[in-house]
């Protein structure tokens, strides 16, 4: 015999819980289709970076004529509308420097990732598909490379070749390719045994053909996921290099060097010199990481059909 009152209240509770969950499920249905949050952050940043020259109120490398140094943002006492986010130690507009700094961060982030991804994916494919001594050599090189402390190595290279934006791009690409080669090699090892690859080999396809037509398109998914996760790392690396003075050279604005310049003024209370570039780094890196996560779930074929 079942206690009807107990059953009723239990079923009402569970029905309520089910409704709540189903509403949540409907939301996730929508949110699952598009990465709303990351795009909401990244698209404005990308637009700002692209249109920097037209949006920025002032030249970021020249002081604002007639402005004082260390002016606070406009909503604080002493601030004014002609320098919305304040000025720095050379009376340069913080807002303009932020906008141009976004350009630097995004360009270095994307380009550096492309360099790293290309090197790493190519080596990973060669190691995985050709096997034998090629595999051994590439993997040992990867191991050795991984043993080097990334940032220190980057600083070393930067001091050797001299700082400039494109040098930094190449350097960061050289530092971060290893994370691709390992993962891609693993994927290629299992792809190699799949029947459609064997079919191509049986049909007489050359190795180059198999790699370009069959292997590469199928590892692109993983490459893209890795890339979106690497952009954040590269951006932070660039910021670190700029902070340490071996990144993009002044007077070109970069968020990292803005942090370095403004660090000493934190004690005095001039927070706007560091908080804004810091927020910029935080938001962009957060957005790329979320995007990478979304991509990973989206592109995983097992999760695709729920």
């Amino acid at each position, binding site marked *: 015999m079942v206690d009807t009152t107990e059953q009723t209240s239990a079923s009402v509770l569970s029905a309520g819980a089910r409704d709540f969950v189903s509403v949540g499920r409907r939301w996730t249905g929508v949110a699952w289709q598009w990465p709303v949050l990351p795009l909401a952050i990244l698209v404005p940043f990308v637009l700002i970076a692209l249109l920097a020259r037209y949006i920025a109120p002032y030249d970021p490398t020249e002081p604002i004529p007639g402005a004082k140094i260390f002016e606070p943002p406009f909503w604080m006492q002493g601030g004014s509308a002609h320098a919305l986010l304040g000025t720095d130690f050379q009376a340069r507009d913080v807002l303009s420097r932020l906008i141009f700094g976004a350009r630097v961060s995004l360009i270095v982030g994307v380009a550096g990732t492309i360099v790293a991804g290309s090197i790493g994916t190519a080596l990973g494919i060669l190691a995985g598909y050709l096997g034998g001594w090629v595999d051994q050599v590439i993997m040992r090189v990867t191991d050795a490379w991984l043993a080097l402390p990334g940032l220190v190595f980057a600083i070393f290279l930067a001091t050797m070749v001299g700082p400039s934006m494109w040098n930094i791009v190449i350097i960061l690409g050289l530092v971060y390719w290893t994370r691709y080669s390992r993962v891609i090699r693993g994927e290629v090892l299992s792809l190699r045994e799949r*029947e*459609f690859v064997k*079919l191509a080999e049986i049909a*007489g396809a050359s190795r180059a053909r198999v790699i370009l037509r069959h292997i590469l398109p199928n590892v692109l998914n993983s490459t893209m996921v890795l890339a979106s996760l690497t952009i954040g790392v590269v951006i932070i690396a660039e910021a670190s290099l700029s902070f340490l003075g071996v990144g993009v050279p002044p007077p070109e604005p970069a968020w990292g060097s803005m942090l370095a310049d403004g660090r000493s003024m934190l004690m005095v209370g001039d927070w706007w010199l560091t908080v804004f570039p810091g927020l910029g780094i935080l938001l962009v890196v957060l957005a790329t990481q979320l995007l990478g996560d979304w991509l990973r779930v989206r592109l995983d074929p097992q999760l695709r059909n729920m």
Partner: protein
Amino acid sequence: MPTPLLELDNLQKYFPVSTGALWRRKIGWVKAVDGVDLAIHPRETLGLIGESGCGKTTTSKLILLQEPPSAGTIRYDGEDVSNLEGAELMRYRREVQVVFQDPYSSLSPRMRVGDIIAEPLEIHTDFAREARAQRVAEVLELVGLQPEVARLFPHEFSGGQRQRIAIARALATDTRLIVLDEPVSALDVSIRAQIMNQLEHLQETLGVSYLFIGHDLATVAHISHRIAVMYLGQIVELAESLELCAKPLHPYTQALFTAALPSHPDQRHEKLKITGEVPSALDPPSGCRFHPRCPHAMPHCAREAPVRKEIAPRHAVACHLY
């Protein structure tokens, strides 16, 4: 008798087995294929039937040149295949194709169907793009699909349709022999009949030969002209399909027939007389490899391996009983 298209002559494939973590000692050989003699003629379907571990997959790998044989020869159109190189080798690869069991992993997921089918054409011919597209449309129609599907991706098709695409790909060039490795085992029952009928129709129209490898006796017997029964790397019986079904001679073949599922509940079925499992190919039994499980084993069988003899016209068996 026309010259066989493909001839396997005392084909052997041994895989070395070694143990030891530091020093790899060789402790023996897995005799996956141990003296296989087979011939496939033009316009013929040869069925190869056996259970897991019998060597049928290894045999197909040898035919497709995925592995070199340890001994014996494969002759195609009379010529030793291991001597082929360059243009001759490409000709072999063009004329001998394969269709695998799993329709879900045999098509490149990021290529359009038309490109998948056209790939052998790209490798072997210098057809222009229009000529290739035309040939793709031709073979798609041959396998019963609309030519318009060429621009779709594999994941938009069902299992049966994917197998048709795989067959179309195998026919794109001037194929003369297709190795079909369990092509319908992964398909639903009703789709199986579609594909089997299609294969038969293609053989009639194009004159292509098949090596049909399978484990389901009824399916293999239906489509094959002749059947070879394999056990532990050797062919134990070879006969025409209907003859084999009427009079299986080798005890293993008889066991396969007894074990086969009935097609009607009233069908009389005998008790299975063999016991145990297939022994490992690493250390096969001496003499006749089937003797430990054979209900008719004689002392002679453990000592001497039987030679394949033709007992009735076009019906050969390797057994001391005959």
